[in-house]
């Protein structure tokens, strides 16, 4: 069992996403500590990419802020290595194929293992292209996390059977970002997934309120929240950590209820 599955041992998992280096790495460090202290079961760390095609305006903005601040993949690895000394919660990287490919897939996976990253999510690498990335990850004990979308339908079984770590269930069509309503029949999706794997599934895209989180958690093993947190970081800058911590506490309570 990989370390990622520990995240799902403490009731429904709450999984926050933040972009590294938004607005700077020192603040990212403070936020990660606040997330861990307030009940995050697993943390997704975004490595910014210049052209994040799966992101809505909020996370696009975070990517631009971080890159304008001079953040690089190497700086993020060094940052995670330091952070790992004090944080035990599972950590996964979320970034785009070219960031990993350009670094060298093998070199990237090796660095992940060295600094204590537990998994990688690449939203522009579907099942068909997974084997270019997954073997290097496997050999270093890093889970390559797959996504399932509302349009996956007949693809769910195959993706679920090969899943590692957890399955990222995309709640809605479109890009990341807060939504007032999620219309997809999530339960039908997670039931289909569970026919094919025992790997936990977490739902993301569009979730921002405790009510939504609670509702989504009924059909899954965890919920992922990105844009709602990144918005708080954009609004509060270097003082974001306590605000985000407070929010995470409420969200974790909502899904534990």
């Amino acid at each position, binding site marked *: 069992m990989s370390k990622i599955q520990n995240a799902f041992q403490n009731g429904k998992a709450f999984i926050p996403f933040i972009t590294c280096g938004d607005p700077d790495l020192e603040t990212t460090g403070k936020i990660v500590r606040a997330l861990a202290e307030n009940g995050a079961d697993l943390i997704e760390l975004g490595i910014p990419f210049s*052209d994040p*095609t*799966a992101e809505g305006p909020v996370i696009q903005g975070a990517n631009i802020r971080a890159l304008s601040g001079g953040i690089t993949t190497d700086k993020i690895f060094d940052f995670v290595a330091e952070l790992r000394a004090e944080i035990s919660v599972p950590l996964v990287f979320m970034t785009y194929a070219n960031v990993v*490919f350009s670094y060298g897939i093998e070199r990237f996976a090796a660095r992940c293992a060295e600094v204590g990253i537990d998994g990688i999510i690449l939203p522009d690498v*579907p*099942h*068909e292209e997974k084997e270019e990335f997954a073997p290097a990850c496997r050999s270093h004990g890093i889970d390559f996390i797959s996504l399932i*979308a509302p349009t996956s339908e007949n693809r769910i079984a195959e993706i679920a059977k090969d899943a590692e770590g957890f399955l990222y269930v995309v709640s809605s*069509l*479109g890009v990341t970002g807060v939504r007032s309503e999620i219309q997809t029949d999530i339960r039908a999706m997670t039931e289909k997934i569970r026919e094919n794997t025992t790997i936990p599934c977490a739902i993301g895209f569009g979730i921002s309120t405790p009510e939504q989180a609670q509702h989504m958690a009924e059909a899954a093993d965890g919920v992922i929240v990105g844009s709602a947190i990144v918005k708080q970081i954009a609004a509060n800058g270097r003082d974001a950590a306590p605000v985000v911590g407070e929010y995470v506490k409420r969200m974790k309570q909502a899904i534990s209820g």
Partner: protein
Amino acid sequence: MKNEAGRFGIHGGQYIPETLMNAVIELEAAYEHYKNDPQFNAELETLFNEYANRPSRLYYAEKLTKALGGAKIYLKREDLNHTGAHKINNVLGQALLAKKMGKTRLIAETGAGQHGVATATAAALMGMECVVFMGEEDTKRQALNVYRMRLLGAEVIPVTTGTATLKDAVSEAMREWTSRIADTHYCLGSVMGPHPFPTIVRDFQAVISKEIRAQILEKEGRLPDAVMACVGGGSNAIGTFYHFIPDEGVRLIGCEAAGRGIDTFETAATINTGRLGIFHGMKSYFCQDEYGQIAPVYSISAGLDYPGIGPEHAHLHDIGRAEYVAVTDDEAVQAFEFLSRTEGIIPAIESAHAVAHAMKIAPEMGKDQIIVITISGRGDKDCAAIARYRGEDLHE
């Protein structure tokens, strides 16, 4: 096992969000069915000939030939197509395919605006809804084309993210497609993006080289020594090359936009300055920094101002079958003016990049040799921008 679908050597593939996978699988299945369907092909041929004014002329540019004093130069006049560029070939094919698939809405990205205008045109003709994404910077450079698209009934959405140019328009069109798939076809404008787009777009543009081949054999009784075209994503170039790929004796020359020069950061010459990467659904060459961040490229030509190149071109480069040369803004503007004066043909600033390279190599070639340059589009849309480049304050 590695996915071999839509690979050109190591390039191509399908690097897109899971949300879009069934859409491209459905598109591939539909295309595989219709490409061999006689009725589909008959309908498309009628559209090409009756609506788009095909076949386009292969014109012997006698004055240009004499002025350069070397190889005999022919111009493939894609600028004479309806809507003024080669883009209509691909768009009519994709719009017809989308219609057969039951789609009622087309979305597209555009750089110079030519693909957007072509898509808006096809949508008007076929009674489909149309939304075009265009970098805000480009909406300023190509204001006339924005007006044309709106006149044709399309909605034009200025894209303000990133560098607000073609790559950002592609990103935004992809984002839009993930949010609305059931009734919407993404009418991609170049031989790029995830499989099957590079193949579909190539097949619809291959009519260019199919015609050149027949026309040059009729006029000269032999194949040309070189065929040339400008390359951004590379659709008019692959269309120009395709039926000559097996003919080793025909040089295939793609002309990239060097912007202010390939030794500066203000360039869009992907083969000359980029390296292997994964972006916009495909593996290919991209202008990028050491960490894989896509570079903010630059060219005077909005249509070539793109940091990548289609995967089949990347492969033709790898195997040495095609040559990719870099042409600066200055050289392209000179060629724009030179062709206007010598032949009375105002080429698109994109196509002027190919003319500029021909001006370099034709004088070094023998008078018994033949060059074909594809004039991918007409230059009316560029006149104001070139005037400004020359210091004249001309606004439409």
